[in-house]
Each structure stands twice: as C-alpha cells, then as structure tokens.
C-alpha cells in the first residue's frame, strides 16, 4: 500500500479525554477520491470507521500491540469496513452503536448498550455532519428510552414509539420538528 496522505495519532487526544471524531471527519472530508489515510488508536475505532465508510472510505485494522491499533483507510467509494473486531477491543469507545441507512432513513441500534450510552450515541449522531440532512432517525432499542425524550425535545426533535419487533426489540422514530 502506498504512503498515506494523512497520518493521525488519536491516542494523545483520547488519553486527554477529547473526542477525535469531528477532527478526523473534517480531515477526511478534505481528501480526494483514492486518497489514503492512516490512524493510530488505542482500540479498534469501529464506529469511527463506520462514519468514514459513509464518506466512501474502506478501512483495515491492524493490532500492533496492546492498546495500539493502526487503521489504514482508502477513499475508494466502496466504504468497506473489514476486519471483524473483537467487541472487547471496542470497550473504550464512546458508544459502539451500529448505524446504517435504508429506504426509511437513518437507523441506530442501541440494544445492549448500558445507560447512558444510548443517549450519548443518539445525541452524537444527531450532532454529527452525517445526519445534518436527515429529519428522521429510527432507534432500535430494548427499552423505552425515557431519559432521551427531554434531551431530544431540547434540541428540536420529537421521539415516538413505533411498535415492537422480534425478540423484544422496540422501535422508535425521532423526527426533527417542523419537517
């Protein structure tokens, strides 16, 4: 693989408690098609890779040692997230909630996340550049997210239950007010 255009070491930022998502997304957005990027992180940053995948980046993780991961990315337009990570390696992540898009709109799966990660994941997603054009977000959950209603109302979104899926899955729809 040829040399990366941008190499970012996220470890000092994460050690200082700073969320690197916005910075990485900003840098990644400036690169042209076919450009390469390399990240170093203390864990396999799966949600970050998923965010970058939606920007057309395919990525490959490589564990160099304990608490030392190298992620190589290429903006090939395919957005493949390869290398099935061990969930334990994602323990240090802010959320870890899977996010995807289909004909109904943007979805986030919050099942299995301890309090308050579901709320954190949803608010992060709604505040990220990826969701700026979305006015509907489907939440897949295992409980009624009571703490989320006030937080969403405060930022102009209304949450409503939409029914029950298989295996106890509960479905909710958050809609931006006025849309």
């Amino acid at each position, binding site marked *: 693989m040829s040399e990366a255009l941008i190499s970012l070491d996220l470890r000092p930022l994460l050690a*200082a*408690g700073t*969320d690197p998502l916005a910075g990485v997304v900003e840098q990644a957005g400036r690169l042209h098609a076919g450009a390469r990027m390399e990240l170093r992180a203390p864990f396999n940053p799966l949600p970050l890779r998923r965010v970058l995948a939606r920007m057309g980046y395919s990525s490959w993780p490589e564990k160099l040692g304990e608490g030392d991961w190298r992620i190589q990315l290429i903006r090939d337009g395919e957005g493949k997230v390869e290398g099935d990570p061990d969930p334990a390696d994602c323990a240090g*992540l*802010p*959320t870890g909630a899977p996010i995807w898009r289909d004909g109904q709109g943007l979805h986030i799966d919050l099942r299995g996340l*301890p*309090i*308050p*990660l579901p*709320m*954190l994941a949803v*608010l*992060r997603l709604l505040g990220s550049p990826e969701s700026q054009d979305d006015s509907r977000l489907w939440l897949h959950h*295992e*409980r*009624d997210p*009571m*703490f989320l*209603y*006030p937080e969403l*109302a*405060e930022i102009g979104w*209304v949450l*409503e*239950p939409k*029914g*029950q899926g298989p295996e106890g899955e*509960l479905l909710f729809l958050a809609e931006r*007010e006025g849309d």
Partner: protein
Amino acid sequence: MLFGDFMMGARSRLLPVSIPGRFFAMAVLFQVLAWGLLLGYADDAPGYGGGLTHLLTALHFVTLGVLAMTGMGAAFQLLPVATKRPVRSEAACKATFWLFLPGLLALGHGMGHADTTILAVGGVLVVTALALFAFLIADNLGKVKDMRVVTDQAWIAVGALALILVLAGLLVADYALGGFLPDHQAVALAHGVLAVYGFMGMLAFAFSFVLIPMFCLAPPPDVKLGQRAGWLAGGALVLALAGLVHGILPLLLLGGLLGLGAAGMHLRAMAKVMKSRMRKQLGDSFILIRAAWVLLPVSILVGLLAAAGVMPQRTGPLWGFLAVFGWLLTFLLGVLQRILPFLASMHSVRPGVKPALVSALTADKPLKLHMVFHLLALALVSAGLAGEWSWLVRLGAAAGLIAAIAYAISAAHVGLSLRKHLNSAPQPTEKA
C-alpha cells in the same frame, strides 16, 4: 400490536408523577424547616455533642426529611427505569410515604421537646417505612444481573439501612425505657456514620454512576474503580463501626482512612467521567456537585481529627455539619436542580405531543440565588462551628434558609409548569 399495549409495557416502569412528586415536595419543605430550626437554635450548635434538642430535630429533618425522602422518591422513580423491572407495588410506595411523613414529624417533635413517647411512636413509624422501602428496593435489585457497580453499592446501602434501623430502634428504646445502653453516645455515632457514609453515602455513589454520565453526556464510569470504591467503603464502614461500638480508636481511624481511600476512588471515577464528557456547559448544578465532591473527603478528614481527639468540641460538630449539609445535602441539591425538571419533562411525554422543555421547567434566577446562598451558608456555619461563634452559625443558617426558600420556589415552578403543560396539551389519540 396496538400502540396502547406497547406503551403499557414500556412505560409501566415510570410511576405516576404523584408518587415521586410527593417525596420531592416534602423534601423541599423539610429543607426549609431544617435551616429554620438551625437558625432558631444556633446558640446550641457550637460544641453540640448530641442529646434530645431541636438541633437533633434539624439534623434529622435533613437526613430523613430531605436526604432519605429524596432518596426514596428518586429510587422509586429511577431504579425501575434503570433495572428494567417495575416496582412491585405502587400502593406500597404510597404506604411508605404515609408511614414516613407522620413518623418523621412525630420523631422531630419528640427529639425537640424530649418527649420520649412521641419519639418512640415516630421512631416506629419511620423504621417501618424505611424497612418497607428497603424491601421494595431489595426486591427490585434482586434479579438484576447487569449494572454491577450500581447494584453492589445499592446493596451496601440497603445493608447499612437495615443496621441503621436496628441502631435507631435501640437509641429510641434507650430514651423511652430510661437508658439500658452502656454507651448511648457511641451507638448514636455509629448510627450517624452508617447513615451518612453507609446508607445515604452509598446511595449517592450508586446514583452518581447513572446520573452524572447522563447529565454531562459521558461514557459510563470505570466499572472496576466503582466496584473497588464500593467494597472499600463497605470495609471502611465495618471497621469504623467496630471501632466505635467497642471503643477501639485505631480501628475507627483505620476505618476512616479506608473511607478516605474509597472516597478518592469514587472521585477519581467521577473525574474520568467529567474529563470524557460531551456536554461542556454544565451549569450551576455542577458547581454544587463539585463543592460536594470536595467536601466528601474534607468531612472524613475532619471526622478523623474529631475521632483522634483534636479539639473535639470544634471538630465534632463541624464533622457532622460538613458530612450532612456539606457533602450529602449539597450533592443532592445539585442533582435535584438538574433532575427535577428532567423528570417533570419525562412525565410530560405523550404520543403526538412535544414534551415540556427542561429549559422551560427550570427557574434560573431562584436556582442561582439558591446556589449562592447555600454555598455562603456552608462557609459561614462551618466557620462558626470551627471558631465556636454562634452568631456566625446564625448568620449562616439565615443564608441557608434563604437558599432553601429559593429552592422551594424553583421546585414549585417545576410543578406548576408541568401542570400547565399537561393541561394545555391535546389529548393523545390511539393508533395502530
């Protein structure tokens, strides 16, 4: 599946607003009463070492009237949501309140007027109410397999509560039956240490692991650190109690030092949460919460000085004040500032209707006034107790009373705004 059926299943964990609301409303009023009593009997505060006085009433109006009352309301409201298990019985929650409120009023009257009969009646009612509360919480925690930190700490709190109730029963009986305890003061101190650092302290630790990350939008706290803090605190309590009851000073001091270590671990876990938070502007409530975090270890250090016999006339009352008013009350008020509007907003959720905004439910000016005067009260009363100046204690209590009234105004604003929102909202329509 019908929308109504779905909602019934999902929402059944959220109790009707009147149940937690009655606990919170009484807690707000008891805070006013407690500061008022301290203001009225400030001359007795410097050098206070226990006994049936209005100061003991003031102390219990904070510990039971504000802290336990809020703890019960919050636990009935939040624990079922967090554990995904509904509370066993709404009627039992109401019964807890209706046993506790008259019991506390009787207990307070008995303490203030040294009326041992009323004291005993109040004591029986309060002990029964708290035992019922402990049963309901233990029942809810019993089948929870996740949330190890919260459940570990809540179990220690429940265990401490059981022991507190036994000691409280002994103390009340000792007053009523003419003194059979060999060392009433030691048992009273053990009861106080268990109440402050055991029951209420561990509940505060447990709630912190859920509420603080939620307030500041941060990942969950360090589980191992939280568990270690809980276990260490449990060990510290056992040692301190053994030291107090058997009169073995080194054990008491060792318990205090371990308690200091547990507090340090808890604060370290909280510091990590604060560092990784997404919400940077936390508002005035976190000024109170941060002040309480500082006063937790300070209270233990002052308690250690009192136990070691360093100016006990000054350090003894100061320890009690810093632990109850400084650490616990300040922490609770900081949390309440945030959570009361939040809970009210949760209760305003209706299908097809926008919930009441937290910002609209929050009365900023009274809360700001409350924060400033509460901190002023802490500083003045602490200085008064340290210097044995009753005029300064009185001045501080006056500031505390102003703060408590300001807080009551803000709480009334929450209740009235919620009622207005619910009355103005259109009726929900059922849909498939």
